[in-house]
């Protein structure tokens, strides 16, 4: 009993933890070894371990972590896959993407394409083409109006809402607005009209010939000028309905018309300039006997007889 600490392999451990029974403790305290154990225990509890600088260590760890990411390997893998996928898809989209040139109201732009062709884009128009590999398949898409000066280097196609124009080195003007009009100034072009009902129709234009699309029927005509008037900063009209004239004005100036009871089917012959709104309004409206005033919001032009 007195030598419990020798025979019982957990006895001293339980004594330290204060888990000896009263009887066990009593017997132990009377043993000769007790005082020695007690002093060893007491003195041991006066010892201190090393000083640990937690904050310094935290800084060290943070610094080490800055050179590595905080995501797990699996997450990192998925993350890499996701990034790669996004890159591939974006690259694909980018390679097949279109380059688009757009002009605002009253703005004009000159575009030089990779094959040296030059395109003058009139106001309120846009032209787009494939960003890459365009030279293998020279196609551009037009909305609005533009003047084309095409270099003789393989086939060149202009898509419009009314049909495709095939070109082989030439100069021509395409107007694809309410009115559709192609004028050929140089060389030869072929227009293939889109037609959902009939078979497509093909028209060939040479220098000085033009086509007008009027209610889905093509009118073939001739013209005399060497260059489209819009390029010279003027819009010219010969017996055109007033509605067309007003429409053209809204492309070149940031305005809208309040037509009221004005008959816009009446025909107009004349021209207006592109660089002076007041001037343009006077030359188009006064000969037609129309008075106009600007509303408070000066973008609205109110017409009256």
């Amino acid at each position: 009993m007195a030598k419990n600490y020798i025979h019982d392999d957990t006895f001293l451990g339980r004594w330290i933890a204060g888990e000896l029974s009263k009887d066990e403790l009593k017997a132990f305290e009377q043993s000769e070894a007790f005082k020695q154990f007690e002093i060893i225990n007491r003195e041991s509890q006066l010892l201190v371990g090393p000083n640990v600088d937690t904050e310094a260590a935290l800084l060290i760890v943070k610094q080490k972590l800055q050179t590595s990411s905080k995501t797990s390997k699996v997450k990192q893998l998925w993350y890499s896959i996701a990034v790669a996928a996004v890159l591939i898809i974006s690259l694909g989209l980018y390679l097949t993407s279109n380059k688009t040139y757009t002009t605002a109201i009253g703005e004009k732009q000159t575009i030089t394409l990779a094959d040296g062709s030059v395109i003058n884009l009139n106001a309120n128009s846009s032209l787009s083409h494939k960003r890459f590999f365009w030279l293998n398949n020279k196609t551009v898409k037009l909305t609005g109006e533009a003047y084309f000066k095409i270099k003789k280097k393989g086939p060149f196609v202009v898509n419009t809402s009314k049909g495709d124009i095939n070109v082989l080195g030439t100069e021509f003007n395409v107007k694809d607005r309410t009115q559709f009009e192609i004028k050929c100034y140089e060389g030869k072009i072929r227009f293939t009209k889109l037609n959902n009902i009939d078979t497509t129709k093909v028209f060939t234009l040479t220098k000085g010939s033009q086509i007008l699309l009027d209610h889905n029927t093509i009118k073939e005509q001739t013209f005399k000028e060497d260059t489209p008037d819009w390029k010279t900063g003027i819009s010219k009209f010969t017996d055109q309905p007033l509605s067309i004239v007003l429409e053209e004005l809204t492309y070149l100036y940031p305005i809208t018309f309040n037509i009221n009871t004005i008959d816009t089917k009446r025909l107009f012959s004349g021209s207006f300039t592109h660089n002076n709104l007041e001037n343009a309004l006077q030359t188009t409206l006064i000969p037609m006997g129309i008075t106009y005033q600007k509303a408070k919001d000066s973008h609205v032009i109110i017409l009256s007889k």
Partner: protein
Amino acid sequence: MLEKEPSVCEERNYNKLFRKFYEPATKYIYYKCGDFQQAEDIVQNVFIKLWKLCNTITYSKAKSYIYTACNNLFLNHVAHQKVKLKHQKTLTDNIDYESPDFIIEIDEFREKLKAAINTLSVKEREVFLLSRVEKKTYKEIAEITGLTVKAIERRMSIALRELRDILGKEIKV
């Protein structure tokens, strides 16, 4: 009680864990290996791992992860050096040692005690120091070391017996 556990990935929580467990873990490893620089390296590496694996370790499991990882890393560094211990500066010297019982001076005894602790095997030394110096309960020591409380009691008993074998002759009864 569906309160969501704090995420270890949140720096605030990570810092909390660091401030709570860095010191005790470092001391624990130091008591095992006796090389303070090595102990700090091991525990810092464990905390770096903890941050990298923060998605996979819940806040409540962090403590056991830290100690388990420390133990695993320690297995690769089995250098067993002497632990340097100090006596508290403010010693309550009014302890009644009944002077005649001591053959030698108390200071000398204390040096011998530290030396004797260093003669213990690592298994006993770490348990003894965690209990007597760090004042941890057997239950806490069991969590840290991965042993059972019974095993702690045994190691503690062995440690005390060995210390008495060495120091007993210094203490007259």
